[in-house]
């Protein structure tokens, strides 16, 4: 299945795009997506420890099992207000 991946804030600059797409097998987890993204964008991989991950509009961890139609967002710590 194809999982769209969105990059927010300065992650967009590090990825060179606001959005990418990763092909993963059925039953794959967020971690599979992360590994593909970090292989393509090592500078994002360097920020792995401080990266926030959402699937749709909910925060999720690397072990979250993806379903067709899910979209992943990766972003740095938030700073509203």
């Amino acid at each position: 299945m194809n999982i769209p991946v969105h990059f927010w804030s300065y992650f967009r600059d590090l990825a060179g795009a606001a959005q990418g797409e990763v092909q993963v097998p059925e039953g794959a987890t967020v971690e599979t997506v992360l590994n593909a993204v970090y292989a393509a964008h090592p500078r994002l991989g360097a920020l792995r420890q401080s990266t926030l991950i959402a699937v749709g509009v909910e925060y999720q961890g690397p072990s979250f099992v993806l379903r067709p139609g899910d979209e992943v967002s990766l972003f740095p710590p938030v700073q509203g207000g």
Partner: protein
Amino acid sequence: MIRFLQLTRTPIEEAALTAGASASAEFGAVIRFSGVVRGREGEAVIRGIRYEAFEAMATHQFQKLFDEMSARWPAVGSVRLVHRLGFVAAGDASLWVEVSAPHRGEAFAACQWLIDSMKQVVPIWKHVEPLEPS
């Protein structure tokens, strides 16, 4: 609990929001917080801050915070929150929050908790705009 949430690209009209509050003899305490963009970021003088949001998620996370606030402080009667997006000049408000409750202790606690929590979970980011266009 009455809720009002707005992510907006136009200036926050605090006086109009205040005038539009539904007065109530049930709620003895109303707290209003304005977060204003400061003219300095560290040592640098700045023109303002550009706010970027993942809007669908921001809206959802704000609503979850309102749910949690209502569960933690069931007496809170209303919450209204407005957050600017896009460029906000130094001296202008980027955030406005109002919480009303029967007593001031819970109004202050709930308002502070909401602001602290949103800064942890709501996907909004700041981009500093330096004084001289770079």
